[in-house]
């Protein structure tokens, strides 16, 4: 592993994004636009207060998952991955480079969505802002890491995009958004316990509701961060120097 190579990789990925303005515009604007739509659909401050943090949780994850899985799939099919694997680049250099570049992109995404929610849409936070930003960012990293991992199992872009609902929908259904986790059948509750999104959603709930997020918030944060690291390491294991 080398810091210089990791940073060069992150810079390269951001340059690629810079050349693709439409993607950047979509990435930055869509969560905010959906937030505004949600506000007018709910037409109720309390319901909006309940749903908006969930969106802030889901969006960075969703977008980063999609972009990363397509991005790494492109590296595999274009031969650039093979070229890099023949060079003195560590596998984690590549993965952390992606994590860093898309983490920064997620920061911009969340910053705008938050700014609009807190000002125009009147989202009220009793406590500080940073727990919310932290959770959103961790979710983006988790999405990036899982996207990298899933792209190893996709041969085509068609397959890659379909991993999104597979990874996303069960986590949303079981994450306690629609039905509180405690009210689910025992087996479903167990499954819910091993899905990282459940902890991300819980952490986000603490971040918006608590004046001073404490022990439970930190436990959730550690679980989400740990899942991201685990997915990143598994992703690294799927990158092979030698292929058939």
């Amino acid at each position, binding site marked *: 592993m080398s810091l210089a190579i990791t940073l060069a990789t992150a810079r*390269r990925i951001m*340059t690629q994004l810079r*050349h693709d303005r439409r993607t950047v515009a979509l990435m930055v604007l869509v969560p905010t636009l959906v937030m505004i739509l949600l506000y007018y659909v709910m037409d109720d401050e309390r319901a909006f207060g309940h749903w908006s943090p969930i969106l802030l949780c889901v969006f960075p994850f969703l977008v980063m998952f999609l972009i990363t899985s397509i991005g790494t799939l492109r590296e595999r099919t*274009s031969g650039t991955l093979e*070229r890099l694997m023949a060079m003195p680049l560590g596998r984690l250099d590549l993965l952390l480079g992606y994590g860093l570049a898309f983490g920064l992109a997620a920061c911009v995404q969340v910053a705008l969505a938050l700014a609009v929610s807190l000002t125009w849409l009147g989202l009220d936070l009793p406590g500080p802002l940073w727990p919310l930003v932290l959770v959103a960012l961790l979710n983006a990293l988790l999405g990036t890491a899982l996207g990298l991992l899933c792209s190893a199992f996709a041969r085509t872009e068609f397959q890659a995009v379909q991993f999104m609902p597979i990874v996303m929908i069960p986590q949303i259904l079981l994450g306690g958004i629609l039905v509180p986790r405690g009210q689910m059948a025992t087996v479903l509750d167990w499954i819910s316990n091993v899905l990282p999104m459940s902890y991300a959603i819980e952490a986000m709930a603490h971040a918006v509701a608590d004046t001073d997020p404490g022990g439970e918030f930190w436990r959730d944060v550690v679980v989400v961060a740990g899942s991201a690291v685990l997915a990143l390491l598994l992703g690294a294991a799927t990158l092979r120097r*030698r292929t*058939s």
Partner: protein
Amino acid sequence: MMNLSDPAIAVRDLRVARGGAEVLHGLTFEVPRGQVTGLLGPSGCGKTTLMRAIVGVQIVSGGEVSVLGEPAGSTGLRRRIGYSTQSPAVYRDLTVLENLRYFAAVLGAPKDDPERVLAEVGLTGAAYQLASTLSGGQLGRAGLAVALLGRPELLVLDEPTVGLDPVLRQELWTLFHRLAEGGTTILVSSHVMDEAARCERLIVLREGEILADDTPGALREHTRTTDLEEAFLRLIEERAAA
């Protein structure tokens, strides 16, 4: 420490299977240092697979490949080998210069290396062009430029002259010979026989086996023909008769 007279590449009984079928059937040969060695043969004969094994990105089922005194795929070799694949492995959504700057950073090559290699492959004029807007020949040269970064001791080039006009092809061959004179070992594949005459040594491959491993002159003499295309045909006949 290794001797300069040691071969740059030594392959012994190399076997590779892909998709259940064996594509390289126990190859044994050496590539001398500081020369341009041509790897010739029709499409599908195993040239690319062999090159991948030398670079160390191919899973092999048997045999030994030693490159610059180390087993192929060793960490230490990653800075010493320049590899360009047949389909140009560059980022299409970056400019040529951005591509080179990134790969130079990964290799730890000098800051001015991107400009140097661009000039060497004659792409200076396209430095600020997005790779996706390049022609096929330009893309190929961009891929070749990446392989030249950091002045590697061994260049493994898979069909670098495909789709180029005769002037550019001539220029690239001049470049290869200049690099070889400077001590670089070059292994270059081609399916065009007329390029064979430009190599100092030829390895002719067909259906995963070596048909010939000699100098172009000796090959012409052996097959009693001046035309290398003809020589290739005679080698196949010879093999069939044996």
